[in-house]
C-alpha cells in the first residue's frame, strides 16, 4: 500500500488589503500577486523556485488584470523560471482555499513535491458580479432565489433562519474583530506576514502601503448600532458587521513533508483533511457548518479536538451561525485571535490563504495547540473547511 504523502504549509504571506476604490486603485491585480509571490520566495530561500511543480492562483473574476490564466501569467511576471507551469482556480470566495486543496491533493497523490498557491481580488477593477450573466432558469425553475445573488441579503436570511442571532450579537462580534485586529497590530503580529506594496497614484504620488487600510480601531457599539441596514429596512446586516469591499493578494507555499525535510524548509502546519459542501444559496453563510462537519467526520476528529479557528468574517451572522452550531461562545478566545475580515476586508478569492497564514501564526504563538480549522462561506451556497495540525514547534 502506498503511503499517502503529507502536505505541509511551509509559509504564507499577503499584501495589506486596501479598501476598494482607494489605495490600490491604480495598481494592477497581477502586480499585487506578483509582489507577494516574490517576497514569499525571498522569505524562503531554501526553496529553489525551479522545483515548484505548479502554481495555482485564484480570482473570482478572471478577466483583465486578473485573467490570462493568472496562475501562469503571474508566475512568468514574478520571474519564476518559465519551466514552472501554472493554472487558475475559481470557487469565488474560497478560490485561494481551493488552490491550496487542489495543489495539496496533487502532493498527496505523489504527483507534486512543491507547489505555490495564491489568490487575488481587485474589487475596484472587478466589482463582485462583473460580467455575470445568470441563466434565466434560475428564476423560471426557482433553482435559486433571486436573493441568493446578493450576499448581504443572504446574511439577512441567515438572521431569519437563526433568530437568536440578533443584531446586538453581530455588532458585538464585529467590535471584537476590530479590537483583536488593533491589538494584533499593536503587538506587531499581523505585520510579520504582510508584504509592503508600493502603490502608484498619478494625482497624489506613489506610496508604500504597509498596513491594512480598512480597520477602524475606534469602533464602538454605539457607532455600530447607528449604522444603516442597506439590505433590508430595519434589518440586521450593516457595513459595520460585514466585511468591506477590498483589493488584495495572498500566496502560500506547500510541500510534501518529506521533501520539506530534505530541503530544510520551515513547516508551520500539516494538512489533516478538507471538505467542501453545498447549501441553499440564499443562506450561503451557513456553508461552513456542513463543510466542517464533513471534514471532521472524514478525519475522525471532533469539534472538541479543535484548538484554534480561523473563520472568514464575510458577515458576523455567518460566523455566529457556525459557533452556535458547535456550541462555541461568541467571544471564545480560540476564534480569530488576530481579528478578521470585518476589520481588514475580504478580497474575495484571496481570503482563504489569509485564514491559513493567520492560523499558522496562531499556532506559532500557541505551541500547545494541536489542531486548527480554516473555514469560510462561499457565494452561491457553499462552505469550505481545511483542518490543520500544528507542527510549528518541529522546526530546527
Amino acid at each position, binding site marked *: 500500500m502506498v503511503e499517502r504523502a503529507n502536505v505541509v504549509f511551509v509559509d504564507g504571506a499577503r499584501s495589506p488589503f486596501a479598501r476598494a476604490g482607494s489605495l490600490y486603485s491604480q495598481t494592477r491585480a497581477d*502586480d499585487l500577486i*506578483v*509582489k507577494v509571490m*516574490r*517576497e514569499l520566495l525571498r522569505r524562503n530561500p531554501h526553496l529553489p523556485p525551479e522545483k515548484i511543480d505548479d502554481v495555482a492562483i485564484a480570482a473570482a473574476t478572471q478577466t483583465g488584470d486578473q485573467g490570462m490564466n493568472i496562475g501562469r501569467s503571474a508566475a512568468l*511576471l*514574478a*520571474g519564476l523560471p518559465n519551466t514552472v507551469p501554472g493554472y487558475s482556480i475559481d470557487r469565488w470566495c474560497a478560490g485561494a482555499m481551493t488552490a491550496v486543496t487542489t495543489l495539496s491533493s496533487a502532493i498527496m497523490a505523489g504527483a507534486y513535491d512543491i507547489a505555490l498557491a495564491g489568490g487575488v481580488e481587485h474589487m475596484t477593477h472587478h466589482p463582485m458580479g462583473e460580467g455575470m450573466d445568470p441563466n434565466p432558469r434560475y428564476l423560471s425553475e426557482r433553482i435559486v432565489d433571486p436573493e441568493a445573488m446578493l450576499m448581504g441579503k443572504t446574511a439577512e436570511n441567515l438572521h431569519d433562519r437563526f433568530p437568536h442571532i440578533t443584531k446586538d450579537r453581530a455588532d458585538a462580534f464585529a467590535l471584537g474583530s476590530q479590537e483583536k485586529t488593533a491589538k494584533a497590530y499593536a503587538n506587531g503580529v499581523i505585520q510579520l506576514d504582510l*508584504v*509592503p*506594496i*508600493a502603490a*502608484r*497614484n*498619478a*494625482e*497624489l*504620488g*506613489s*506610496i*508604500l*502601503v*504597509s498596513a491594512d487600510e480598512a480597520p477602524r480601531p475606534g469602533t464602538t457599539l454605539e457607532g455600530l448600532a447607528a449604522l444603516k441596514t442597506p439590505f433590508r429596512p430595519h434589518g440586521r446586516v450593516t457595513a459595520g458587521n460585514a466585511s468591506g469591499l477590498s483589493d488584495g493578494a495572498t500566496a502560500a507555499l506547500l510541500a510534501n513533508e518529506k521533501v520539506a525535510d530534505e530541503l530544510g524548509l520551515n513547516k508551520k502546519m500539516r494538512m489533516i483533511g478538507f471538505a467542501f459542501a453545498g447549501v441553499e444559496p440564499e443562506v450561503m453563510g451557513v456553508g461552513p457548518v456542513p463543510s466542517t462537519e464533513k471534514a471532521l467526520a472524514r478525519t475522525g476528529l471532533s469539534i472538541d479536538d479543535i484548538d484554534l479557528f480561523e473563520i472568514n468574517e464575510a458577515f458576523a451572522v455567518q460566523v455566529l451561525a457556525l459557533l452556535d452550531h458547535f456550541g462555541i461562545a461568541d467571544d471564545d478566545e480560540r476564534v480569530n485571535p488576530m481579528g478578521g475580515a470585518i476589520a481588514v476586508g475580504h478580497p474575495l478569492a484571496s481570503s482563504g490563504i489569509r485564514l491559513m497564514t493567520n492560523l499558522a501564526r496562531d499556532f506559532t504563538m500557541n505551541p500547545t495547540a494541536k489542531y486548527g480549522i480554516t473555514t469560510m462561506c462561499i457565494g452561491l451556497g457553499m462552505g469550505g473547511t481545511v483542518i490543520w495540525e500544528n507542527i510549528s514547534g518541529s522546526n530546527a
Partner: protein
Amino acid sequence: MSETNPTAVAENPDEVVTQARVRYFPMPLGAGTMALITLDNGHDHTRPSTFGPGGLASINEALDEIAARTDVAAVGVTGKPFVFAVGADLSATSLVNDPAIISAFGKFGHDVMRRFGEFSIPTFAFVNGAAMGGGLELALHCDFRSVSADAAALSLPEVFLGLIPGWGGAWLLPNLVGPKRALEVIISNSMSQNKQLTPQRAVELEIMDVIFAPSDFLEQSVLWAAQVLQGIVAVERAPIDRDSWDAVVDAARGQVDARVHGATRAPYIALDLVQAAKTNSRSEGFDAEDAALTELVMSDPLRASLYSFDLVQKRAKRPVGVPDKSLARPVNKVGIVGAGLMASQLALLFARQLMVPVVMTDLDQERVAKGVAYAHTELDTLHTKGRISDDKRNRLKALITGTTDKSLFSDADFVIEAVFEQLDVKKVVFAQLEEVVRPDCILATNTSSLSVAEMAADLAHPERVVGFHFFNPVALMPLLEIARAEKTDDPCLATAFAVGKGLKKSCVLVADRPAFVVNRLLNRFLGEIISCVDEGASFADADAAVHAMGLPMDPFVLVQMVGPAVAQHVAQTLNGHFPDRFHASEKMGKLVAAGLPGIWLWDEAGNKTVDPRVLEIFGDAPSTMSPDQIRDRALTAITQEARIMLDEGVVAEAQDLDLCMILGAGWPFWLGGITPYLDRGGYSDPRFLAQGIASVPA
C-alpha cells in the same frame, strides 16, 4: 538645511509641467517616516517628464513642505512608470535670444536641485526608469541612488546636443566617481551617438549604488533605504584619485581633438568643467556651469544641433511628400539581383527585418552560392554572439536562398537589383525580370548615380520602378533615399516607403536626379577639394581643411575607405551629367589606373604619410593653398550645389538636404546637416533657413 533661496524664473505657458507630489509613510525596520516625491507630468511614457520652470518650482515647493515638518527621517524621489526624468525642457530654447533668461533658468535648476544634496536628512533617488540629463543630475544630487534593472536610458547627453551638463552633473559626477568614469558618460558616451549606460554598467561605475528588479523596484528600494538608515547596509564607494585627475582629463582632451579637431566647443567646455571640478567648490562648479550653458545656448552651433536633433527625431520618422500608406501593397517575398557584398548585406537586412523569403540571384551558381554563404555566415556570427536564438537563426537561414532560375521570382512582391553600376547592365536585368515577375511587382534599384527613369524606359510597366538607395554599411547607416522617377506611380512609391519603414530606415523622398542628395553634395564638396589638390594644395592641408567642421572622416581617408576606383567612377558619372561643376580629376584617374589603394600609408604608430607613388602622380610641389582657403572653396561649391538642387526640386526643402547629410554622410549635429552652417558662414544669399530656425533668433 540649505540656505539657498531659489529664485523662480518666468513660467512658460506651453510647459508640460512635471509635478512633484509628496506622500508620507512609515519605512520598514522602524526606520521612520519617508517623504516620497513622485515626479509625474501626467502623460504616459511616450511623453517623458522634463523640467521647465514650473517643474523646478514644483520640486522646490515639495522640498519646502518636507523641510517644514519635523517627523521625516528621509526623502525619496522617484518617477512615473518607465521614466524617472529625462532632462531640462528645451522646447522653448530655440525661441530664446536673451542670455539672461538662460542664465536664470540654469541657476534656478541648480538652486533647486542642490537642496537634495544639502538637505538636513538623507535623500534617496529611486531611479525607476529613464534618467537623462537634468533627470540624472537630480539623482546625482541625492545622497544615495537605486536603479531599476529595466531603466531604458541613463545618460548625460548634453555634449551630444552641443551643451554641457548644466544642473550640477559636471561637478557632481567626477566628484562622485572620479574624472575617468565621469568622462565616459559626459564625453565618450555622448559623442558615440548618444550611447546610454545600462543599469548594470551604472552600478559598476558606482553612479548608482544598487540595482533591483523592476517587478518590485520601489518596495525593494524603500527597504534598502531603511537598511541604509539603520546601518544594516553600508554604501561603499571607491575613493577618488585626485592625483591622476589632470592626466585623465588631458588624455580625454586628446581623444576629443582626434575626433572633432576643435570643430565644436561643447566637449572642450565640458572637459574644462570636469578639470575645474577637481578643486572647485560645489557653488563654484555650479556657477561655472551656468556661465558655460549661457554661452553655448546663445551660440548658433547649439541651435543647429537642436535643429538636427529635431530633424532626426521627427522628420526622419514622418517623411514628407509620401502617398498615403493605404496604397502600399503587401510584400511577402523579396528578390535580390546580384550576389556581391552589397546584395548579401541587403539579403540579410530584408530577411531580418521583414521576416519574409529572400531569393538571391546572379550570373552563375558559384556567385549565388557565395552570396548566400556570406549571409548565412553572418547569421552564424550573430548566433555565436548571442544576438539571435537557435530558432531565429534557423528561421532566417531558411528565408535566405539563392538560385540562377529567375522563374523563382515570379511570385516576388519586391525585387531590388544591386548589380554592376552600369546603365545597360541594369536595363538588361530589369528586362529579364519583367519577363518573370508580376506587373505590379516593385522593381527597385540600388543605383547611386544612374537614372531610374532610363532604367525603366523600355519596360512594359515602368510605373513600378523606383530608386531605393542604401548607404554602406547597410546594417548600420539609417538613411534610405527613395527616388521617384517620372512614371513611378503612387502605389509603388507608397510600397517603397512602407518597405523602408519595415527595414527600420529613415526614408527621404528624392527626385530622380543624378546621385540623389548625399552623393551629389558629397561629391561636389570632395570634388572641389580634389581640384584644389590638382591645383597644388597638399593632401595634408586638404584633409585638414574639414577639421574646422568636425566631419566624421577626412576627405582622402574617406576616398581610401570607399576605394578610389569607386570614387572616380562616381565623379566621372557626375561629370557626365554636370560637366561645368563636377570634374573627374585626371590625376586621380591615373592613381586608379595604377591600382593604388589610396593616398595615405599608415605606420604601426598610426602616423600617416603620402604614398610616394601618389606623389609621383600628383607632384611634390609645395602647397599653394591653406586649409581655410580649401574649405572656403569647398563650401562655396556645396552652397551652389545645394541651391541648384533645391531649385531642381531634388527634395522638398533644405531640411531634407540636412537630414540626408546627417543620416547618410554622418555629418555632425553642429553643422545642422549643412545648410545652417552655410547660412552661419555667410555662404548663402539668400539664407537657406530663416534666422531662428537653426540659429539664434534676431
